[in-house]
């Protein structure tokens, strides 16, 4: 998300529809625009009140062509609407030459466009996240519209999280009216925090893959609106991924069995899958995890008790001195599940627990509580999970009895 730089200093905002569209009944427009404001009040303590006359914060008009602000509309298609940021008054103008529609695949959906424009009225700029409401392009009617987590983060960066229950009508399955902030415990990851893989995207997001679903992580735990299906977001990518990483070229590579896939963002970058043996010569199939090590920017693959260093700039990319034993990474266990770089540290995950690797000492960090720590507590925001060091059994790390 992107913030323009201004916001309203009050949480109770009034609006007025000064000029209605030519092709829709006024009462229906009232309902749709009210719904569009609710998209934002669902996640903040903002309150929107419609007025029929007098001064308001946000004035809404449906206009054609030049309409007095020096930014004329261009007829059907092209520009659909525009709105002013709070510092410029917050007004929203819609091109009345468009065929505005409600709950229809025909024409242009009024609710979706209005919700986007009101995002501007509140201080949000355009997002480069394609799935975000605040992305600039109209995507067509979405009958099961849900606000993207990117938008939620944006609006909450401006106005904070929702603290007061509105008692309003939920507008979707995950739109609740509880007093809790939306980033809450994920029952699935809290019950069983073992994962298939974790990786950073080029856009700076952290993702967790498990089975056929995925979650996005925030600094507080799991982001709102997850899990989602991997196949819905990364078209053509199967579930049960072994490992993944994003390289400095901005491309994300996924590994499963003997195959790998390459994506730019969530778009497949060519014809995949391909064989690991072809694209990553010297790397075995069925790897456990992969990471671009913060120490030297090279790609490290781990499998069982061994690891391989892959440097695409070298020929061969894997030196004949590899594989080496994972035990060279002091304190890091064999048979890893996942790894991820966060704030300059490399984290390794196995079972219910994780380890923080310190590049300077080239060993797992000595800290209190000691590593391994609970992935559920520290990464997934499960407050009921143990906070301290986890014990270890033969196969799997479990909560120690005194915790």
């Amino acid at each position, binding site marked *: 998300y*992107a*913030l*323009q*730089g201004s916001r309203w200093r009050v949480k109770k905002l009034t609006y007025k529809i000064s000029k209605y569209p030519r092709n829709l009944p006024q009462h229906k427009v009232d309902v749709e625009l009210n719904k569009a404001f609710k998209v934002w009040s669902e996640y903040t303590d903002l309150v929107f009140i419609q007025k029929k006359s007098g001064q308001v914060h946000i004035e809404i008009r449906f206009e054609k062509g030049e309409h007095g602000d020096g*930014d004329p*509309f261009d007829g059907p*298609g*092209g*520009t*659909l*609407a*525009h*709105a002013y*940021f709070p510092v410029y008054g917050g007004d929203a103008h819609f091109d009345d030459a468009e065929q505005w529609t409600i709950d229809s695949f025909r024409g*242009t959906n009024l609710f979706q*466009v209005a919700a*986007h*424009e009101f995002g*501007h009225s509140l201080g949000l*700029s*355009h997002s*480069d996240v*394609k799935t975000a409401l605040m992305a*600039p*392009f*109209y995507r067509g009617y979405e009958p099961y519209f849900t606000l993207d987590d990117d938008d939620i983060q944006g609006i909450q960066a401006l106005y904070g999280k929702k603290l007061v229950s509105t008692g309003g009508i939920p507008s979707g399955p995950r739109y609740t009216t509880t007093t809790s902030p939306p980033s809450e415990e994920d029952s699935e990851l809290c019950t069983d925090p073992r994962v298939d893989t974790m990786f950073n995207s080029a856009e700076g997001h952290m993702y967790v893959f498990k089975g056929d679903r995925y979650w996005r992580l925030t600094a507080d735990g799991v982001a709102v609106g997850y899990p989602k299906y991997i196949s819905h977001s990364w078209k053509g990518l199967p579930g049960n991924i072994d490992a993944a990483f994003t390289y400095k070229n901005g491309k994300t590579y996924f590994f499963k069995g003997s195959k790998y896939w390459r994506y*730019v*963002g969530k*778009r497949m970058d060519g014809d995949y899958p391909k064989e690991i043996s072809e694209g990553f010569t010297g790397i075995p199939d069925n790897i456990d995890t992969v990471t671009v090590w913060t120490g030297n920017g090279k790609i490290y693959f781990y499998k069982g008790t061994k690891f391989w260093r892959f440097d695409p700039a070298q020929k061969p990319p894997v030196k004949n001195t590899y594989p080496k034993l994972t035990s060279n990474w002091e304190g890091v266990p064999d048979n890893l599940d996942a790894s991820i770089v966060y704030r300059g540290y490399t984290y390794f995950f196995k079972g219910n627990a994780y380890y923080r690797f310190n590049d300077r000492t080239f060993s797992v960090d000595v800290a209190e509580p000691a590593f391994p720590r609970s992935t559920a507590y520290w990464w997934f925001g499960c407050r009921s999970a143990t906070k301290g060091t986890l014990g270890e059994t033969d196969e799997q790390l479990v909560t120690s009895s005194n915790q």
Partner: protein
Amino acid sequence: EDNPGLISQTAAMNYLSQFGYLQPINPTSGGIISQDTLSKAISEFQAFAGLNITGDFDEETYKLMALPRCGVKDKVGPGFGRSKR
């Protein structure tokens, strides 16, 4: 002529200007901008829109430019302002 059914190169340049990727064209300079400036603007738009970054008006870029969209500039945040002299 390169993009039948889409938009012309002039329209594409106007688009980049309208949405904040190109400085408004100065009429006193005859509206001429360097290829480098144009390529950089196209690249920025392609990066923002999640397209392949080619720096050229390719078909994919034209197609996206032809989509209905919001009229607010893409580049308005604090990071896009003029730097202090």
